[in-house]
Structures are given as C-alpha cells and as structure tokens.
C-alpha cells in the first residue's frame, strides 16, 4: 500500500491542491446561504425552494459547481487528516491511514458524480 501511495503521490497532491484552493473558494458562499442564511430565515424561502435550486443545480455550470463542492473538500480533508495522523506519530500506519482516507475521498467523489448526473 505504501508503495502504491508513493507512486500516486503526484495525483493525490494535485487533487489535494485543487481541493484546498477551489474548495476553500467555493465553500463560504454555500455555507453562508444553505448552511446558515436559509435555516436562520435570513434568506427567503423562495430562494431555496426545490424548483429553483434544482433548476440552478441541473444547469451545466451548476452541476460543475455542485460537484466541486462535494468532491474538492474531500481530497483536502483526506490529505490533511493523513498528515495529522503522521504528525501524531502515525508513520508506521501511514500506508493504511492514507489508503483508507483517499478511498473515502474517491468514493465520495464518485458518488458526487452520480449525484449531479441524476439531477
């Protein structure tokens, strides 16, 4: 597993890089409206009604943004949690921890593709 991870490091790093850059740029907008604004009543209900959101999300750009919001943070998260594991003395278990975390990110990304495809 460690050797496989070593060979895949460039790919994982690229995904992580996109994740931290684009994920961080995209998330605040989503969080401010969907995570806080709408539940707290600061955003009109009509704005987040199903028909409107579905129409926005089903738009090609919308699908891309939604996929970005799902997949990108996962790769940043997986990579940094792996880093945290090593920081905590987990050098020996790095192959396992990295493998599990990146598999999780991959699973989430694939499900994300399915989710936006079926909109």
């Amino acid at each position, binding site marked *: 597993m460690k050797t496989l991870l070593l060979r895949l490091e460039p790919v994982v790093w690229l995904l992580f890089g996109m994740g931290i*850059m684009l994920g*961080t740029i995209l998330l*605040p907008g989503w969080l*401010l409206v*969907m*995570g806080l604004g709408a*539940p*707290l009543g600061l955003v009109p209900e009509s704005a987040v009604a199903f028909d409107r959101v579905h129409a926005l999300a089903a738009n090609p750009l919308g699908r891309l943004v939604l996929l970005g919001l799902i997949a990108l*943070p996962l790769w940043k998260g997986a990579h940094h949690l792996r880093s945290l594991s090593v920081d905590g003395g987990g*050098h020996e278990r790095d192959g396992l921890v990295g493998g599990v975390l990146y598999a999780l990110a991959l699973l989430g990304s694939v499900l994300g593709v399915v989710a936006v495809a079926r909109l």
Partner: protein
Amino acid sequence: MSRTWNPHAMQPHAAARTRSAPPGIPDRFWSFPRMRRYLLFDATGLVYLLIGFVILRAAWALGDGPEAWGRVLHDYRNPLYLLFHAITLVSVIFVGVRFFRLFPKAQPPRIGPATPPPRPVIHALLYAVWGAVTLGLLLVLGGVIP
C-alpha cells in the same frame, strides 16, 4: 526539557561508530502556539471531509425530489447542523487565510516561458477571486439573481 519522540528520526543507514542517544524533541515541540496553529490547520481536514459528504447528501436529495429536499432544509435548521456549518465556515476562513498567505511563494520562478506575477499581486488576486465567487454564490443562491 525534552523527550524522545521517534527514536529513528534522522538515523543514518550506516552504523555510527559510537552508541548514540536517540533523537529528542523539546517539551514545547507539539504545543507551542505556531505549531498548534499548524496542527489545527491539518485538523480542519475532518471538517472538510464531513462537509463534502453533507453536501453530497443534499445533492442526492435534490435528485430524489421535493420531499427529500424539504427534509434536508428541515434538518439544516437543527442546532447541531447550524453549529457544524458555523464551525465549517470558521475553518474554511482559517484555511483560506493561511493557504493564501503560503500559496504565492510556492510558485516556481518560471515554468517554461511563463513567470508568475509578483507575490503580493498573487495574494491580492486570491482574495479578489475569493470575494467575487462568494458574492456570486450569495447572490445566486440567495435568490437575488437570476
């Protein structure tokens, strides 16, 4: 003063001529403020991993139909969800500020014929894009446009 952490740190492959003491780290190594901030930065990975799956659930519900989406909106009013989203927002800002500070100097002096803009320009551009995208999403998701 200090303690042993990984006894094999910086160990040469060739055997030393005398018995060495294992490498030590000072007591403050993992706990001094700047290191704590770095560890917190890594720890935000958990928040990012979770938010990805949370948004996945919302996207899946959008595909399922109005009732599923209604359940998502209802769940988001739960104080635990509100707390999670608030923590995520704080984490994302923390990550953004640190990452945008460190990103400009990570650009090589040139790639082929291309050279990057000066570091302060990259730094400003990152914030400009962050602001513009956030504003755009606020306006679109918030119902102002279209």
